[in-house]
């Protein structure tokens, strides 16, 4: 079974983020980076399928050079090889363009299965899987919370949908899955895995290597123009309650009883 997992590198969630002056992106100086959480579950799902049926797991990513660190981690967890497409001409705020690049990496590989996380913690469009599936002509499944492979060409999928609805679905491969956090228990990279990862292939490609020009990436009928980001205006003005824990407790109860009248 040949499985490709898409990995995105996002800011570590413990860091406070601020915007660049033009609002186009976040300030990257001083941030720590990690693999997008749901992508870790995707990697684990891929590794488990390889352990069951053999084959290989390819990790793919789009982003600047720093993303090699995320791919090394994916290799240390057990992926067999990795490809990073690093090219400043890729419009990173358009999931269409990023997905187009990933599809171009995957098309010649013809994987049986492509796995992405449910959504990225930075942009969160939740489109990568769909864009890849459409370019490759693969079946696609959102919100996968469980999967079994009774045969190497067929998966039994459990999807978690809105309002506590679960769908059980049979899918014939090839397919693209969007994995939800919680689908499994992502493994930690072992010391042996970290050592082995240093020797595994990690190719860094530019658009030319994929036979693409920047124009090829864009939608010809509708283009996403990223005007920038801002801190949302608060609809409710929060009232912070401060002091020693005892004082906070007393003040909060007073406010809830006398001001908000909900106790």
């Amino acid at each position, binding site marked *: 079974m040949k499985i490709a997992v898409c990995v995105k590198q996002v800011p570590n969630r413990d860091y406070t983020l601020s915007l660049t002056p033009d609002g186009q992106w976040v300030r990257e100086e001083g941030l720590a980076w990690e693999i997008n959480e749901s992508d870790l579950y995707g990697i684990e799902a891929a590794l488990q399928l390889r352990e069951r049926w053999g084959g290989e797991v390819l990790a793919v990513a789009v982003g600047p050079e720093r993303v090699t660190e995320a791919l090394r981690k994916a290799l240390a967890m057990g992926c067999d090889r990795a490809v990073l497409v690093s090219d400043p001409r890729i419009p990173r705020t358009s999931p*269409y363009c990023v997905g187009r690049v990933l599809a171009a990496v995957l098309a010649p590989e013809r994987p049986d299965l492509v796995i992405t996380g449910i959504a990225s913690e930075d942009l*969160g469009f939740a489109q990568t899987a769909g864009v890849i599936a459409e370019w490759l002509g693969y079946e696609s499944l959102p919100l996968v919370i469980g999967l079994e492979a009774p045969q190497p060409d067929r998966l039994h999928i459990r999807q978690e949908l809105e*309002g506590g609805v*679960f769908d059980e679905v049979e899918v014939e491969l090839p397919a693209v899955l969007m994995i939800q956090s919680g689908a499994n228990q992502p493994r930690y990279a072992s010391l042996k895995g970290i050592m082995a990862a240093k020797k595994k292939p990690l190719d860094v490609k530019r658009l030319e290597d994929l036979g693409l020009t920047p124009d090829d990436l864009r*939608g010809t009928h509708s283009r996403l123009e990223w005007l920038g*980001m801002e801190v949302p205006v*608060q609809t409710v003005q929060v009232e912070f309650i401060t002091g020693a824990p005892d004082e906070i407790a007393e003040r909060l109860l007073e406010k809830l009883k006398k001001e908000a009248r909900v106790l």
Partner: protein
Amino acid sequence: MGIIWTIADYRGARLNPQTVELVAAAQELAERQGHRVWAVLAGADPAPLAEALRTYPIEKVVLLRHPQLAYLSAFPFLQALRFLADRTEPPAWVLYPHTYRYYDIGARLGVAFRSETVSDVQRIVWEGAEPILIKPTFTNKFIARIRLTGPGPHVVGLQPGAVSADAVRTGGSPEVLELTPEIQQAGRRHLVRSIEAARGKVDLANAPIIIAVGRGIGSKENLALVQELADALGAALGASRPVVDAGWLPFEHQIGSSGQTVAPKLYIGVGISGAMQHVVGIKGSKVIVAINKDPEAPIFKIAHYGIAEDLFKVVPALTKKVREWKEKGLL
């Protein structure tokens, strides 16, 4: 002058309530840009659902009828839409619900039209006739402003609540166009069954007070702290997704887009950062209190009262105070 497709979603014999919001958004867009609105219903037998859509002053209700459309999946659904575009004309805009079943479909529809889909739209602001699409980024810390350029079709996925259903105009009798699309390539996924998770004994929907616990609690053992406060206040215990994923509480406690939507008079979030998936489930709460040591946590953007302190100090103090007040007859 073009057409706006509004994708009408449904479950069983009932339209998804979000459909009304999509119709309202389409009406506004149509008015500002001079388009006509079509509501598009796909299914094995969508006719009975058409009546609910015929109450809006839109041009057409389109019924795409085919046995393969009984179960919503990308291959048959996109072929049906392609058939509609070929048989009539490609739309200027497509508005679809940004809900889980449409995550792959919305992106694929964009690629099929060679259009860059904008999904997860939280709000629309207008610059004259031009919609600026607002979507959350970086787990709700920021919002992005997005414009679409090009001839279209423009494909936009709206979050539930992005447009108020109250804005919809009613009264009218759209014509019904019924088509049986050609579907050459069958879907390669097959629904075995669809089940609704048991709600169990945790009745979050009717609880007047809810204390919800998040990732910040750190471990299953620490839940006892929050449970004590819940017991003292007579509150039901809810949880955000990471707590359930970690196995610290069962699924029936989960609040948010995958779990339950709640509307208590008092919601207290403990160690919850306020990711969009959780926030959509608590928006209806009358009063929101947030306890989180990070003063930048997004939950403070929607909270009425905020306590930016260590929950392990504040929660026990609060429990103690609640008990004292009860002894004094103040609560």
